[in-house]
């Protein structure tokens, strides 16, 4: 986590952007935004802009990756070079490799990959603009894109982070809170069963603070889930095809 700093991140119970500790940044989601992908979603979350596209089930390449038991699921989290202040070099780095790996594992819990043996399903998420919390925004969008692709799913996935700033547990860290905060705990849950399918943590937390952070995220996840459903409902009303 963050650098040491004298910056006060909470004043009079309000955060730098005026949010309360357990308040999310504004989120908007739209399903069905791409023409080529079988399913897609665009999501804005604070200053984050991400777009997710899902291809498949389709022929598995390379062949030796195919399984007679399930679809081979890949997940590619990619930051556009212009998404951050200091230009990011194109292509995967260690951070995005790790995020892609754990996000694929989370998605595999809900997409019914066992229904499509010998195929592959590819999930691509492009981070167009980054503003802290991109991995959560990406996975939340990916779940909507997978549903938009009509893939059979056990549940959706909602991802969200809580953390600690100025010794206070808060929801959904913004960019400065991320840079100068004390801890960050991104999670992903299935909204119905409350199963946790992704969990990372870094920083410094007591057991109690950790529990508080998780509880806060789980509560927020319900709100986000409503937005996911709304996006899909609007999409199905309107019918297929990119508008």
């Amino acid at each position, binding site marked *: 986590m963050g650098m040491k700093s004298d910056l006060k991140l909470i004043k009079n119970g309000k955060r730098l952007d005026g949010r309360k500790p357990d308040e999310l940044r504004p989120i908007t989601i739209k399903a069905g935004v*791409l*023409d*080529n*992908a079988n399913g897609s979603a665009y999501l804005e979350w604070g*200053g984050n*802009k991400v*777009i*997710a*596209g899902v*291809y498949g089930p*389709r*022929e598995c390449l390379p062949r030796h990756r195919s399984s007679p038991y399930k679809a081979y699921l890949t997940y*590619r989290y*990619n930051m*556009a*070079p*212009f*998404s*951050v*202040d200091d*230009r990011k070099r*194109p*292509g*995967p780095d260690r951070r995005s490799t790790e995020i892609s790996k754990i996000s694929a594992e989370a998605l595999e819990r809900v997409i019914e990959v066992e229904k499509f043996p010998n195929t592959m399903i*590819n999930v*691509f*998420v*492009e981070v*167009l*603009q*980054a*503003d802290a919390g991109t991995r959560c925004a990406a996975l939340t969008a990916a779940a909507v894109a997978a549903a938009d692709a009509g893939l059979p799913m056990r549940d959706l996935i909602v991802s969200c982070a809580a953390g600690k700033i100025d010794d206070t547990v808060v929801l959904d860290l913004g960019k400065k809170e991320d840079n100068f905060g004390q801890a960050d705990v991104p999670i992903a849950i299935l909204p119905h069963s409350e199963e946790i399918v992704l969990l990372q943590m870094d920083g410094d937390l007591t057991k109690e603070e950790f529990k508080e952070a998780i509880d806060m995220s789980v509560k927020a996840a319900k709100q986000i889930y409503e937005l996911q459903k709304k996006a899909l409902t609007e999409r199905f009303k309107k019918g297929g095809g*990119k508008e």
Partner: protein
Amino acid sequence: MTVEDISWEIKTDYTRHLAKKKMREDKRKPFEYRKIELENGYIPNALGSTRVRLGKTEVIAGVSLVMGTPYPDKLNAGTLMTSVELTPIASPMFESGPPRPNAVEYARVVDRGIRESGTLDFEKLCVTEGEEVWMVILDLHVLDYNGNLFDAFALAAISALLNTKMPKYEDGKVIREETKGKLSVQKKPVECTFFKIGDMLMLDPSLGEDKALDARLTVATVGDRICAMQKGGNGSFTMKEIDELVDMSFKKSKELTKLL
């Protein structure tokens, strides 16, 4: 041959069959562009950015300005780098990995259009001769590939450059938060991509036409001058055809310039 290959074969036959009858699948006239939408400042984090939709093709250009050292043979000039990522989200034909020849060609043709037209005053981008110069990095990203990336990229590129803010540079540090005016852009080059199927000449290939075409010609113009050209495809043009397309490019470029 995969199922997908066979499906493309059938589509290609159909596209070629239509062309013989001087028709296009989407009913367009030969030299008609699809609907074009520009959205400048789409990526607020970037110093300059534009999203372009050309029919169902969708691309984003982002501009970065980085302090660097000049080339040894141009000590008093800034530099330009153009990079294209054909991200696999945009098409089942694109794969992850290092840039393939297609991506390199797109990047170099767009780069030439800007560089050769004198759009950027590279000498103005020099801060200290021989030591510090601005490097303009132009990143072209595709989200949905439905034909004619040349023109979509070129339009996004020049539009993003036109709305690029110059960051402050003080005491050896780039201060992105404070900007002082805009990047100096002196010209507005645009590119028009024509193609030929059989004997028929057309403009702005759709995805199916991109796959079915015999030959392709991109003409970059600025005002009444040509600044870059690129022929592609396994077919050929006659000299007469090229003359006709160059004429047409001056006409169509006016339409595009109006959008900037």
